[in-house]
């Protein structure tokens, strides 16, 4: 099954490009460490999911590029073409001239309706190129105006036009200390709207990725390109083909569906966090060896202690005692999960034991531990890492950041600052209040796990 990616705004297009680059470079690599047959199956599966074959033989990304100003798309298209290994279709982009001015209302209420037909036509064309459509992946930031506002509108249109398809929104959360002053307003508006039309939100926070770049990747002068490449690597580790437990011998044919089934048992809980281990500069890879028990142990503690990366994990945090009365306060800093998905890639993956992730004390009581935990595996190594493990988690990972964003937005809303910029495009105070209510509800639900 194929996935159609919709790249929205500057962030969405910049990251989208890095994702396709990473996927392409991974399948072209000779570091698969597995049998030829396995490797070929992997390559075919990846190509079917993300690329279209063209007569020239150069794979064409299954993507629609949308932005309200032309500079980023133009750069993105040319960078891809210059790589020589893959490219975007010449007819899959839509742009305008003026941008959205970091104004969610402008993106949602003005650009959305105005350009709906043109954008959805492009999506339809891309969808028709797929033999079997597996769903949509949108990539956007929630701080600006296009990715956030127009992105929310387009997600709704996708839901209306493709009611039975899966929609996964990859949302980038901005640095806490401003990239955009009204970022918290834009975030609140985006998240509340996405919650109503999307199937799940897969989140990356710029602050977290920045730390990974600084502390694990040893990058001195971190650029957005560096950040985006780490994000692309993490996304690749989720979306590259893997074998699901009951999937038989072939690679999973329905990656988005499998993801949703594994992680979103209840519509109130749709926020997914992502962790990846190990993460290091490419130059260090030849000098490092990993063991599955070590990786799994670290990943599990990252989950429990809500660590953002494999350094600085708090090993003191423990899951609550199994016999603990449900009303007893859970230990502080313990991250309760609803559902988890671990994806293992690389050498000797069949020997990896994931029993520790099935420990019922990690989860809320309302699902069977067997249903709450899923594992996907493939012996084919990813992106030059001999062994790597990814965790996609529906847990309290994002509770604190979400609460912080809503708090700051509320603080600003109480003073009515900047509201005139939104009301002039049709978003009124009541609309804001509805969004705040939706998110407070989400926060409350996750808090009371």
């Amino acid at each position, binding site marked *: 099954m194929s996935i159609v990616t919709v790249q929205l705004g500057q962030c969405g297009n910049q990251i989208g490009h890095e994702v396709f680059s990473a996927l392409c470079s991974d399948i072209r690599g000779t570091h698969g460490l597995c049998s030829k047959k396995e490797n070929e199956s992997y390559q075919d599966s990846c190509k079917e999911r993300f690329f279209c074959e063209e007569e020239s033989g150069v794979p064409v990304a299954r993507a629609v590029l949308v932005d309200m100003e032309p500079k980023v798309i133009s750069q993105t298209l040319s960078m891809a073409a210059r790589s020589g290994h893959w490219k975007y279709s010449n007819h899959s982009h839509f742009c305008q*001239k003026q941008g959205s001015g970091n104004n969610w209302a402008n993106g949602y209420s003005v650009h959305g309706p105005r350009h709906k037909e043109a954008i959805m036509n492009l999506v339809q064309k891309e969808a028709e190129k797929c033999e079997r459509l597996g769903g949509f992946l949108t990539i956007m930031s929630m701080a600006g105006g296009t990715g956030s506002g127009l992105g929310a509108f387009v997600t709704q249109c996708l839901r209306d036009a493709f009611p039975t398809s899966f929609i996964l929104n990859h949302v980038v959360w901005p640095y806490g200390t401003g990239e955009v002053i009204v970022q918290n307003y834009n975030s609140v508006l985006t998240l509340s709207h996405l919650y109503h039309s999307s199937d799940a939100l897969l989140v990356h926070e710029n602050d977290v990725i920045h730390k990974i770049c600084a502390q694990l990747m040893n990058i001195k002068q971190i650029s*957005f390109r560096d950040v985006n490449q780490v994000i692309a690597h993490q996304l690749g580790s989720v979306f590259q083909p893997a074998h699901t437990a009951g999937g038989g011998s072939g690679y999973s044919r329905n990656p988005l569906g499998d993801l949703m089934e594994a992680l979103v048992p209840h519509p109130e809980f749709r926020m997914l966090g992502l962790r990846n281990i190990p993460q290091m500069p490419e130059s260090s890879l030849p000098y490092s060896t990993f063991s599955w028990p070590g990786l799994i142990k670290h990943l599990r503690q990252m989950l429990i202690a809500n660590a953002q990366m494999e350094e600085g994990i708090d090993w003191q945090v423990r899951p609550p005692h199994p016999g603990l009365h449900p009303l007893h306060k859970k230990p502080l800093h313990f991250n309760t999960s609803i559902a988890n998905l671990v994806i293992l890639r690389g050498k000797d993956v069949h020997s990896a034991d994931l029993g520790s992730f099935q420990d019922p004390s990690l989860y809320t009581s309302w699902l069977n531990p067997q249903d709450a935990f899923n594992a996907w595996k493939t012996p084919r190594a990813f992106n030059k890492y001999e062994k790597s493990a990814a965790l996609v988690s529906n847990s309290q990972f994002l509770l604190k950041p979400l609460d912080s964003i809503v708090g700051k937005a509320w*603080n600003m809303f109480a*003073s009515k*600052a900047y509201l005139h910029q939104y009301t002039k495009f049709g978003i009124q105070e009541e609309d804001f209040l509805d969004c705040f209510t939706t998110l407070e509800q989400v926060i409350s639900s996750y808090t009371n796990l």
Partner: protein
Amino acid sequence: MTQSVVVQVGQCGNQVGCRFWDLALREHAAVNKKGMYDEALSSFFRNVDTRSGDNGPDIYKGKICSLKARALLIDMEEGVVNEILQGPLRDVFDSKQLITDVSGSGNNWAVGHKIYGCQYRENIVEKLRKTAEHCDSLQCFFIIHSMGGGTGSGLGTFVLNLLEEEFPEVYRFVTSVYPSGEDDVITSPYNSVLAMKELNEHADCVLPIENESLFEIVNKIHQMINSGKLGSTVKQNSLVTSSAGSAKTQVKPFDAMNNIVANLLLNLTSSARFEGSLNMDLNEISMNLVPFPRLHYLVSSLTPLYTLADVNVPSRRLDQMFSDAFSRDHQLIQADPKHSLYLACALLVRGNVQVSDLRRNIERLKPSLQFVSWNQEGWKTGLCSVPPVGHSHSLLALANNTCVKPTFIELKDRFMKLYKKKAHLHHYLQIDGMEQSCFSEAVSSLSDLIEEYNELDATKGGPRVDPSRLKIAV
């Protein structure tokens, strides 16, 4: 890509404007090596096929034929505009972009606004329409003028009104040069306060400039160069005051000061014209820096003032650039933002600077700055890959800060000194359309503005009480 049109009004407006076009050409010449007309150029220039004379068609792609500025030059005296037309920039403007008269406005806002406004209204509208027609996506009008005289102040604000009526969707950014205390125009307080009312009501963003600040910056640079304190040589064309490498050869005294303002406008629009990893367009500036409609006065600073000839820039010097942006003596008005309250702050970086450098410096400088309680992390940032000519990197800081208040209070005080004695009032009141109420309304508008800043200042330093969040029934 969007286009912007510059409307330069009066002597000051046209002198600054002239420097702007010169430096804009220089900047594009440095970046555009192939001589092809591109999107970046089209934001300020048309490409005209002049083989069949001045009325040739616009060429949208391909080689540069003849660049024409997207500008309107307005002055009620001929001296300055004539000089421009005889100088090296004469080919950049065509006669259809000029509106001039002979007798000037006599430093009288009412003459500029009421008499010439009325007289030239149709002419101005027609020329504006023509300029707008040449743009396929007009985003912004930049008005450049001074506040203290008659034409720039009176006719300039008349044009501002006109722009709002005729082109309500297009942004109006105004660069206003405010008179100093020792201004030799006695009636400058009247002119300025009458103009302020118009700026309050019709501008989207105002960038106030004070000559004293420009003058101090120019002096500072001369001192630094002459004192020999700098180890290596200063790259001449990197001076924020320099015209080196541009068409102009003589340097008149005001040129250095006007170059600073021209550079301000170039840097402001750089991220809209050139690519970068985090673009910051003009509509984003207005969105992020104007929390309440009337509080749209932005204090600006440009750093570094010059670049040394070293090729490797240690991050220490990069960090110094950020520190300087917040220091009193780099601001383009006499104000100290560090000791007042920030409502919002924007940093537009050009050149080889990455997001980590930005973040490091914001973290470093934040503790020494006071932000209003509802905007504690109120930073808007932009990264443009193309540095200004002669520099490897530069920074433009725009602050919406209560430090503009003293400038306005002083203006009001100087106004009241004259007004109480009714000094020179008759020159204004004898103009058709002017009444005493124009004055009282204008000073009232200014007082209200000052009061809004006062209320914000009152919240400074107080205990931070966050409003309670919505409660959800579990």
